[in-house]
């Protein structure tokens, strides 16, 4: 698995590269730091860009493929930039029994992407996660780090209406500001 390079622009890679040395400096330069470094990089940029992987490899004296090999082994690491809104649908046991797959399907249909993907406008990304620890509220979705319990297909619709309203509002505010300024 490699990153979809087309999603990451050159400017973005440049901006990422500029911040990496500071992140690296927090960790001893040894093999055992590999995963913590990858986590810190992802924590900052939300994903591991191809350029970042190359830099991590250089820093730790490993090959890029070695770093990819480790990173792809773990579910936590992402190789594509997430959307502005991150949607995670719980596929844990309790949520499965309560119909989590139906919720996931609703998101897939609505966004026209599969889990692990981001919409082309980079507005939304969709992921499946295992048990977020709120099984008593199954089925559960996590939207922008906010856990929503007792999900239903109709709630999926409602969510997007909310996003739409929010977007409209932002647009209006921006316009108002522009016309004022």
């Amino acid at each position, binding site marked *: 698995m490699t990153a979809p390079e087309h999603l990451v622009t050159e400017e973005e890679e440049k901006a990422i590269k500029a911040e990496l040395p500071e992140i690296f400096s927090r960790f001893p330069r040894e093999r055992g730091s590999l995963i*913590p470094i990858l986590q810190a990089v992802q924590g900052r940029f939300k994903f591991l860009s191809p350029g970042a992987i190359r830099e991590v490899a250089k820093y730790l004296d490993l090959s890029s493929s070695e770093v990819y090999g480790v990173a792809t082994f*773990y579910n936590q690491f992402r190789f594509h930039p997430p959307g502005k809104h991150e949607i995670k649908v719980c*596929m844990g*046991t309790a949520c499965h029994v309560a119909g989590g797959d139906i919720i996931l399907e609703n998101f897939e249909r609505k966004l026209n992407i599969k889990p692990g993907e981001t919409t082309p406008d980079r507005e939304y990304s969709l992921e499946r996660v*295992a048990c977020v620890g*709120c099984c008593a509220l199954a089925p559960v979705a996590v939207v922008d780090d906010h856990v929503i319990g007792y999900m239903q297909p109709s709630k999926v619709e409602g969510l997007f209406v909310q996003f739409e309203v929010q977007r409209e509002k932002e647009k209006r505010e921006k316009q108002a500001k522009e016309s004022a300024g």
Partner: protein
Amino acid sequence: MAKDTKIIETYEKLRGAARKRLEAERAEGIPSIRITMSTCARAAGAEETKKAIEDVLEAQGLNARIISVGCLGHCYAEPLLIIDHPTTGFPPICYYNVDANKAKLICRSYLEDGDPAFEYVLGAMEENDLIPPVTTFPRFSMEQRVVMELCGLIDPWNIDHYLDKDGYSALASALQMEREEIIEIVTKSGLRGRGGAGFPTGKKWKFAFEKSADGKVVICNADEGDPGAYMDRTIIESNPHQLLEGLIICAYAVGADEALVYVRAEYPLAVRTIQHAIEEAREYGLLGENILGSDFSLSVRVFQGSGAFVCGEETALIQSVEGRRGMPQHRPPYPVEKGLWGKPTVVNNVKTLSSVPPIIRRGADWFRSIGTEGSPGTAIFSVVGNVKHPGLVEIAMGTTLRTLIFDICGGIPGKKKFKAVQIGGPSGGCLPEQFLDTPIDFDSLTQAGAMMGSGGMVIMDEDSCMVDVARYFLEFTQKESCGKCTFCRIGTKHLLNILNRITKGEGREEDLETLRQLAEDIKKGSLCGLGKTAPNPVLTSLRYFMDEYEAHVKEKRCPALKCRDLIAYYIDLEKCARGCEACVGSCPVEAIFTTKGRKKAIDQSLCVKCGECMTSCPPEYDAVVKVSPPELAPIIERPPDQQPKRAMDGADS
């Protein structure tokens, strides 16, 4: 080490200072409001509730101290408040399902007018004559809390709260004992590892102790990969210091100078909580150089696991800390001989380590008096699924499944029938009704074909399909197999393919025998516990729910009406109310149309079987019917003027 009164003195000074600070707070006589703020409570709206309380206090000029606590384990009742208003004469009172509005009402009524708002009360937290105490409810009284005793009652972000409850006194006593003495107590207590396998903890420590080496390591395993369990996370979020205390005692006993808490990165709150606790302990001299003035030093750090189930396995976990792919290694050598960076390493689960301080404090015999001969102590389960009072439950080992599910957790909601209980997650199995009287302990569960495993427990009613559940777990283990062993990698893939086929109605009769054969082979041919136990969900369901497999294979029918390829929804025209539109808007794919008789019908070619129409159909009509096999649904022609809008607009944007 000889008896060293200095250690006890240092400890007592710490505790005394902590008590003084809390005492000063209490002396002010202002009410305290404890609010649960664990992940599950937040999901249930605890943040909004807290905000509402802050607002009402501010607006009304009321004086009260808000304390965020962890999880009480009563997830069905979140968010929970415990208000202690000493000047009223009432005991501390627990309120349940407190949303923002209720919170405002309760605060105004109780804090302003001294009326505790009885309609929202769950119970009193202490015995008294005024309000029935929560201890009269089975969900409280039948539990026995050793590890979770303080969870939800103390502020996990304030070490004083733990010290006030004699926290770290076990460490102080341990530091005065000979190392062998501690190991002896733990051995005598009969404590077995709570990470799944149930290995005797004392024995593990002894191995590590006897190994002479330059440095030794203790790792707390909080990877908790079971996709339906969250005990370890909750314990860390609710009382991190008890875990740390156990970890330090273990390190001292085996002679380690380095310790690690391996927490899943998906648990951000737990990560922050344990990091904060480590800093506090360091500040208080309970970690770092010369702990409590003794000559024992220990450094602890947190390592974030990155979400691979197999990394819960101890050798894979160590690989990942070393910066490699988390592949399990051949044992022996066991980690206690050659673990992290080649050093002797003790790996223990969160619950195992959290059991240690009470054992040191109250003795091995006390611990043995709880639970059974072979499995002393308590077990903690996250009981979820089709059950009235889901949440975390800590019970004495040996309690039967029936007591746990029906008496403590309230049984199955609605008028549904119990079908099965899944124990032990992906490594465990599904047990049917005839096993309800099985005592919960390591050996009985293994004998029944399930496993103590991680402590995940999912209760399933008649609407759950056992084939689908087996398929679900297989899908999980198949994805999580690290790929090292052929049997695990390819065998689970085959198993999954067959199960997928069966749930799609494409099963063949010989499949059932193949499943069993393959499952046995995978068990035998795999290196680590993942492969060895992955077939368990399949084997137990084959054993106890053969009739369901047969219905899927022979009749292409899902008796529980769960497998979506084998069911169909239709609308009973007799029951459907003319002109009612309730279901139309609920359908995400515009599959519902109006018939010539102005009733509704479902276009089977578009239906995605999400069941929304069934939910939205008003109960007085109850016209939507689910059937299996799908051929049972009558076919109704969709009139040309009733075509879905999307289809007419062209492609969906």
